[in-house]
């Protein structure tokens, strides 16, 4: 059980996306599509014929698989409902961030492969956002890792099971902003747009179609859910199972589901109430949250919690 | 003892003669005369070496004397004369300063040398004044080099300096090993030949042997670098 918990991420991640979309539609006063719509989309895309530019090279064709595989790899390393398994494999959170980076690297390369301006634009902006987000994520991780005495996500999840400290609160807010940026949501990026001048993530995927697009999209959903899971593990691990007992896992699964839906709500509220920022206003937003992360570290040094 | 005193007197006379030729250089205006002054200077130097050679009957001093005569007294002056005539450099030494001032400066130099060396090195045996005179000649040679424009005058100044140095060495050691003297003489010869060639070349390139023009080379170089 504990060794296949990553299956949850793989199969439920489109659902989370569907829930967020549905909630957003409701906030905007629309009925919206079904929460299972992402599944239908993926299935349709897998069956579809692909149009590939003849400018592209093997990077373009390999990238979707690499992105998908690296995200799955990350999913394997994260304790989803039980902390037991990840001791045996490598549950290190710094590794996790770098495994994500594999996907990011190849996605950005693939975007440049077709030789279009849109791909370059998306790739370039994605890199900018990731440069601003990465140090912030790392500082948040440091704060929690220092408090827990380990960079292993399972250990972090087990040790901070009870209460949030001031430093964790600050790190949590910083981390949430990082997630918004990393998953390409408003106010950083607009996931629904296909307007050339505003897109970041979609710009990179513009040349993709058929099963490649399906893999890329699916990996994106998985990454979103994974980041939620990391938040849950780092800041609200309450309810997570310590071992593989059936009853504990059932409780943990329920708790996990509630937490995921809660985070989906938070995301859709943020998306519905904020406007997208101009690209060059991002540094001030992300710089602000970097300051939060530094503050959380300072708090940890000063008051020790 | 007595003999050596006599000898020292003779030496003094010759040394003073050397100094006089050097001083005379300050006032000469014709290049030909400058070369002549150098010739006299070299002959006097030859005599100065010959005197101890005769008295001590030292064969190596004979060799040194004859070599001095051959190179400094005959070959170099002839060569210089040839350049002077070939290049039609007969007239106009054109000093930066007037002859009178040049002469005065030479006097000051001699005074300084005498004043500073009076209690300095006690010259062993050879001559009371030879050392002081030799240094004065070096300085006067340098002064000539500074205050004259033509490359050939500078060569003459250099040769005077060299004679002065030769005299210094001689007065301090009563004759260096012959091999060193040979070397020095050969060096001087080469030096003069090379300088002669240079003078011809400078003339060729710049249509003048006026060394004032050499600053323009420097300026060109700096503008190139800048």
């Amino acid at each position, binding site marked *: 059980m504990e060794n296949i918990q990553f299956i949850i991420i793989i199969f439920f991640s489109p659902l989370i996306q569907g829930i967020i979309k549905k909630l957003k539609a409701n906030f905007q006063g629309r009925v919206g599509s079904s929460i299972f719509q992402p599944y239908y989309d993926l299935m349709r895309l897998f069956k579809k014929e692909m149009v590939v530019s003849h400018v592209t090279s093997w990077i373009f064709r390999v990238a979707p698989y690499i992105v998908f595989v690296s995200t799955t790899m990350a999913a394997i390393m994260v304790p989803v409902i039980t902390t037991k398994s990840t001791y045996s494999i490598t549950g290190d959170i710094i590794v996790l961030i*770098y495994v994500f*980076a*594999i996907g990011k*690297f190849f996605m950005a390369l693939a975007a440049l492969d*077709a030789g279009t301006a849109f791909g370059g634009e998306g790739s370039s902006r994605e890199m900018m956002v990731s440069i601003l987000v990465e*140090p912030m994520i790392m*500082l948040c991780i440091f704060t929690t890792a220092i408090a827990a005495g380990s960079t292993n996500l399972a250990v972090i999840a087990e040790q901070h099971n009870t209460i949030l400290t001031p430093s964790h609160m600050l790190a949590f807010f910083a981390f949430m902003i990082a997630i918004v940026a990393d998953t390409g949501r408003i106010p950083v990026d607009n996931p629904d747009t296909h307007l050339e001048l505003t897109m970041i993530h979609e710009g990179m995927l513009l040349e993709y179609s058929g*099963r490649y697009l399906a893999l890329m999209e699916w990996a994106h959903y998985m990454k979103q859910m994974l980041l939620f899971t990391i938040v849950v593990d780092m800041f609200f691990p309450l309810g997570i199972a310590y071992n593989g007992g059936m009853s504990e896992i059932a409780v943990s699964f329920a708790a996990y589901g509630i937490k995921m839906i809660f985070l989906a709500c938070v995301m859709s509220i943020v998306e519905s109430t904020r406007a997208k920022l101009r690209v060059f206003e991002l540094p001030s937003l992300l710089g602000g949250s970097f300051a939060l992360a530094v503050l959380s570290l300072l708090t940890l040094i000063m008051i020790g919690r | 003892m007595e003999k050596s005193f006599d000898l020292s007197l003779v030496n003094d006379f010759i040394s003073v003669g050397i100094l006089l030729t050097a001083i005379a250089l300050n006032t000469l205006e014709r290049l030909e005369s400058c070369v002549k002054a150098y010739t006299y200077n070299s002959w006097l130097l030859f005599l100065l070496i010959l005197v101890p050679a005769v008295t001590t009957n030292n064969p190596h001093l004979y060799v040194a004397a004859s070599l001095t005569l051959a190179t400094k007294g005959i070959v170099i002056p002839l060569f210089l004369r040839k350049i002077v005539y070939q290049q039609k450099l007969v007239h106009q030494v054109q000093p930066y300063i007037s002859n009178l001032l040049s002469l005065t400066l030479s006097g000051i130099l001699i005074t300084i040398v005498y004043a500073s060396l009076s209690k300095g090195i006690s010259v062993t045996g050879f001559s009371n004044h030879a050392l002081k005179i030799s240094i004065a000649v070096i300085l006067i040679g340098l002064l000539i080099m500074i205050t004259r424009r033509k490359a050939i005058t500078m060569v003459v100044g250099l040769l005077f300096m060299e004679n002065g140095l030769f005299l210094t060495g001689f007065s301090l050691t009563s004759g260096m090993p012959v091999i060193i003297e040979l070397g020095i003489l050969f060096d001087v010869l080469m030096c003069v030949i090379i300088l002669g060639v240079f003078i011809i070349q400078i003339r060729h390139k710049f249509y003048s042997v006026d*060394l004032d023009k*050499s600053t323009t080379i420097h300026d060109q170089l700096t503008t190139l670098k800048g």
Partner: protein
Amino acid sequence: MTSMYIYYFGLLLFIAGAIIPLIYPQKMKRFAYIFPTVGACAFAAFGMYLLFDHPLDISAVSITPLLGFVFRGDAISGFFILLISILTFSVSVYSMGYTKNMANKGVMGVLFNTFILSMYAVILSGNVITFLISWETMSIISYLLVTFDREEESASAGLLYAIMTHVGTAFILTAFLLLYKYTGHMDFAGIKEATNDIPAGIKTIVFVFAVIGFGTKAGIVPLHTWLPRAHPAAPSNISSLMSGVMIKTGIYGILRIVVDILGVGPEWWGIAIIVIGAMSAVLGILYALTENDMKRFLAYSSIENIGIILLGIGASMVLASNGLHTLSAIAMTAGLYHTLNHTLFKGLLFLGAGSVVHATHSKNMEEMGGLIKLMPYTAFFFLIGSVSICALPLFNGFVSEWLTFQALLFDFKSASAVAKLIAPMSGAALAFTGAMAIACFVKVFGISFLGMPRSQHAENAKETSTSMLAGMGFLSLFCLLTGIFPGHTIKLFSSSVFLLTGADYSSSGMGILSMREISSSISPLSLFIVMISLFIAAVFLVRIFGGKRKITYGNSWDSGIPSLTSRMQYTATAFTNPIRVTFKKIYLSKRHTKVSYALKPYFAKAIEYRDDITPFFEKYIYQPVTDFIHSLAGKVKHLQSGDLHLYLGYILATLILLLIFWS
């Protein structure tokens, strides 16, 4: 004794490699590089011997009791010998093809071999004199190699390099003289034994001078200006050696003098090194990003990596001064591991860049593009180098960066609040450089290898010769091996770590790197296996559920404009624009746009766009210093008017003054 034979065998081969091209300039093209190839293997074996066995006195030629040549090897030198040997091997193989059409082949062969020998000599030096002579020889030969192309750019780069390296040597010399004065020894071993006699204040001065002196060679940030100009100016096989190993001699110097000889110092030493490292890493990669010259870009990235190495070393020093020796050993392992890694991937990348420059006759990325189809193998190896340097898992860069992160986290255990704050902040800086490195290498690889060819030259590029590919392939393989077998790699140089920190980091198994202290571990090997199997599974599952792949080939999306030309692609400058704008306070960028209109304001005929960044250090530190020296020189210049008479006048004046004062 065998090791001595190996040593002399290797030495002989290099000397032969240096001499033969002098005798037979026509037939040299084989031997000048075959000899060092074999010689490098011999030296690699010798380095291994030093790492696994005992220290070794090689040869001592004493001139006087104080002056003499002493060569000695221990585990620390063994590690660096191994680094040089690995890279020399690949670069020699590469050079066989690379130098084929080069002018002055004979000179190149001689300099190549002597350059490598001088680096070995620096590492193996056993006393101050030997070290300084070897160090200067290395500097001079590398200067000759920088100016090898005889272009104006190389000449000015060479001049800057010569000046900087001599300023650095002056500091090193002063540090050594101070050590000699207070210990009375010229021998490193003797100095090390007598370190307790040195007063604390003097130790600090020696530390500062050694860091400045060796830091100049390593290229730490305010002293880095020569590096991005000199490294690209040299031929690419030499750039590879310079960036791969020569700058590591600076690291070696810091390790030898500061960590080995001076021993454990006050905590602020380590903090200073961490701060320098973080600054070098961040600024190095920031400047790298804006660079469109492929080789100069790589040179800037070397500055970044030197910074990362120093982060590990600094963290180790902080931990050592807090008495945490085991953790200090882990941090030192991180530093040395990254040293090894940087040698491998930077060597590889420079060789790759060399092939690309060779094929396209341009260093400018904007004139490349689409090379992945024309030079598939070069592109593949370059990709491996990029992935390694970006610290992506499965390749070696990742292991050392992970270790460095852990090392910086350990620093939180130190007593002072400054270290507690600095270390995690440096960790954030390291994360920043990691993300920046990804952006940088996406740019380099994406712009130069992907897309459409941007110039005629790029269209006609051809794959390079087999020997060049072999050199790169060898390094690529090493990048992968050291990436998935970190345990073995660490065991290889654990004796050097022990020598430097007095503790062992040996809690590593096959492909697993575990730390009991923080109950965390990584296993690149299992990561590798899992990812490969996931990849295969993904491909199969997609095939099963999606059916047969149906692909239509067409043009890239052109927004309805009929023909998409290569000029419509995103350029390297455009790619970095968002980042340049974000960090404009650091770049101090100035942009100029000039539009000429056919009909104002709607029909623009031509738009000229320039965006320059201001190199902060060059403009605000080096320029004022240079200006001051220039103005001083201008004043002194009047003394040197070029007037012969005036010069003679100086002589006369001096003589007269001497006469007067002498009496």
